[in-house]
């Protein structure tokens, strides 16, 4: 397996936090523990009725790192991420941001902590336009407390100019937009507010090849700007391509978190399908996956 190339940090990009030499941190060095975690989720459990959707899972992400979160259907990836984004409160466990414990009881708490989420469903209100969606819940107000739609449109034009320069339909309801345009609105909403941590739930599932490549490029760019990204995906190639570390879930449990450079794609598949860490898998089991 080829080692992933580290993208050159862009000139305007903020240097990743983490002390001297952080700008030259390689993925391997990050994964090796050179930097403290941005977000740590410790011993998180979520149950729906009697079903343990997430069972005592601990994962973390560091600045400038992409952690791929993979697993089969119903493995608990999305539920785990929903407890970080505030969509669903965890039953037990703790969340630390920059080493300090925080309470995330609702989406507002998560956003205040610098955690932004791009949901698989995009979570857009179809009947209102892109600026209104981008600022939903965080509207810009005028001095007299009214919505400053012009300022919001202006800010949206600026952020879209960076993410998707072809985007022109700032005043029509987002239901009239194409899938890729809607996706870029959802991404713009996540990156506009100086997020520290980004949760991307199947960000390329509904996109064509060109748009998928755009999103991948964006992920590399955001990573180089020092964000920590949880990338939830069914697509093992997406994850192998973009992530430094891969956390695998199976039936609500964490099978393990592995360094991408330490494993083969077959070993990751083994973890996903058989629910066993690589050292517990033997050659025959891996062969049987083929």
């Amino acid at each position: 397996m080829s080692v992933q190339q580290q993208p050159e940090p862009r000139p305007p990009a903020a240097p990743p936090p983490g002390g001297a030499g952080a700008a030259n941190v390689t993925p391997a060095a990050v994964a090796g523990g050179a930097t403290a975690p941005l977000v740590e989720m410790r011993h998180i459990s979520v149950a729906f009725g009697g079903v343990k959707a997430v069972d005592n899972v601990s994962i973390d992400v560091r600045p400038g790192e992409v952690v791929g979160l993979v697993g089969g259907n119903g493995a608990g990836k999305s539920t785990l991420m929903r407890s970080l984004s505030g969509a669903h409160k965890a039953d037990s466990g703790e969340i630390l941001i920059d080493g300090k414990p925080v309470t995330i009881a609702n989406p507002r708490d998560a956003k205040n902590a610098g955690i932004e989420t791009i949901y698989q469903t995009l979570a857009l209100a179809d009947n209102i336009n892109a600026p209104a969606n981008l600022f939903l819940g965080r509207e810009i107000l005028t001095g007299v407390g009214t919505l400053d739609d012009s300022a919001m449109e202006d800010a949206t034009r600026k952020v879209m100019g960076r993410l998707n320069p072809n985007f022109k339909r700032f005043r029509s309801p987002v239901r009239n937009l194409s899938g890729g345009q809607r996706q870029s609105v959802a991404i713009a909403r996540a990156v506009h507010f100086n997020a520290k941590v980004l949760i991307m739930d199947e960000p390329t599932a509904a996109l064509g090849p060109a748009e998928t490549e755009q999103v991948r490029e964006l992920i590399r760019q955001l990573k180089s700007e020092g964000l920590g990204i949880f990338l939830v995906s069914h697509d093992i190639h997406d994850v192998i391509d973009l992530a430094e570390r891969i956390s695998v879930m199976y039936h609500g449990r964490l099978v393990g978190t592995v360094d991408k450079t330490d494993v083969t794609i077959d070993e990751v598949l083994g973890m996903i399908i058989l629910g066993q860490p690589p050292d517990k898998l033997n050659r025959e089991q891996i062969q049987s996956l083929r």
Partner: protein
Amino acid sequence: MTSSVATSEHETGSLRDRVMDLVRATEIDGRLLGMIVTLIGIEIGFGLYTGGSILSPVNLLTFATQAVQIAIIATGMVLVIVSRNIDLSVGSVLGVVAMTYAVLMHEVFPTTIGVDTPYGWLIALGAGLLIGIILGAIQGFLIAYMKIPSFVVTLGGLLAFRGLVFDISGGSTQAPDDTQFVVLGGGPLGSLGGTISWAFGAVIIVAIALYLYYNRRQRRRFGFPVRPMWAEVGIGVVGLLIVVGGVAISNAYHWPAGLIEQYAAQHGISPEGLVIEAGVPWPAVILLAVTLVMTFLATKRKFGRYVYAIGGNPEAAELGGINTRWTIMKIYILMGILCAISAAISSAQINGATNDLGNGYELLVISAAVIGGTSFAGGVGTIPGAVLGAIVIYALRYNLQYIGLPSNNQDIVIAVVLIAAVAFDTYSRRNAT
């Protein structure tokens, strides 16, 4: 694709496209424009049929004043339906509040603070408003926080509050109201008078001009595309014509002979040749104010933005960090306030309150909102649309009654209009995408 719409005004494709381009340049809601055209069509049609007599100022003012009570509540019903809820209790809430007004002024005040005191009617209004807020808050709490479907809660409200009306009244009609209160109902004595009406019109015209100027400047400031100048001027001129026309029609209605004689006797002058212009009726002024405030809340405040977001995608609103429950509860509190305002006008118009006042209003209010373009799928609807919807319903009702159609058949016509309006929406939405 080739199915034709009976209500379509456009003959050829190219002309239609050109008209649509012009409309688009003005950035006016095509739906609203269609309703205004429909309304003018109704009035011209009936005007021709009756040889013009139906277009007399008194006829126009009468149906407009009647429409006000429905239109005021319909402005709130838009937000209720936009947020994917319903309110069936409006007629009963109106009944409770109207009966409160009447009982206070007819029974309570005479034995306490006296009849026709300068402030008695204000106390009554305050009490009614408070009751409206309480009834709205109770229903809003059950819907938003207890998660009971709004249909069920407000169906309960419809029944329970109507029962409450009888408890408040003791079963009998309560009349009359305070003489100052009655002014709210309109009519010759409840209007602004000729001179003030023109001043009122002038204020509105200046406000329209300032609004257009401010909007243009705001868009220029950010370098956004602005409307072509002809469209700005055109909108201003149309606004001016509507205001001038409205005031002129109102002023063309003169006090009837009986009132003139009373007035002349009181002031010791001769009634001969005395003409007093009624002017814009108070209900119309109140409706205008309510429409402006509600449009402001819906389009310029976070509250309105959240209502539409909830209607468009409740989950997205929740994930956006919006307090959706408090937003829903506020909508129902607002409905209580609107019902109280409407109840004041209803009660003032009949100078008292009957036990069945407001009976069946829920269906008229919902019809007005739906004819005005509010969609039961949620997320779609405008407040000016609902006001126009109420006016269309009452224009039809009044005119059909005027030409002698029995009331059961009026309902049939209104039902056809209701369904046709929704069919038109469904058709145009399908073709838009």
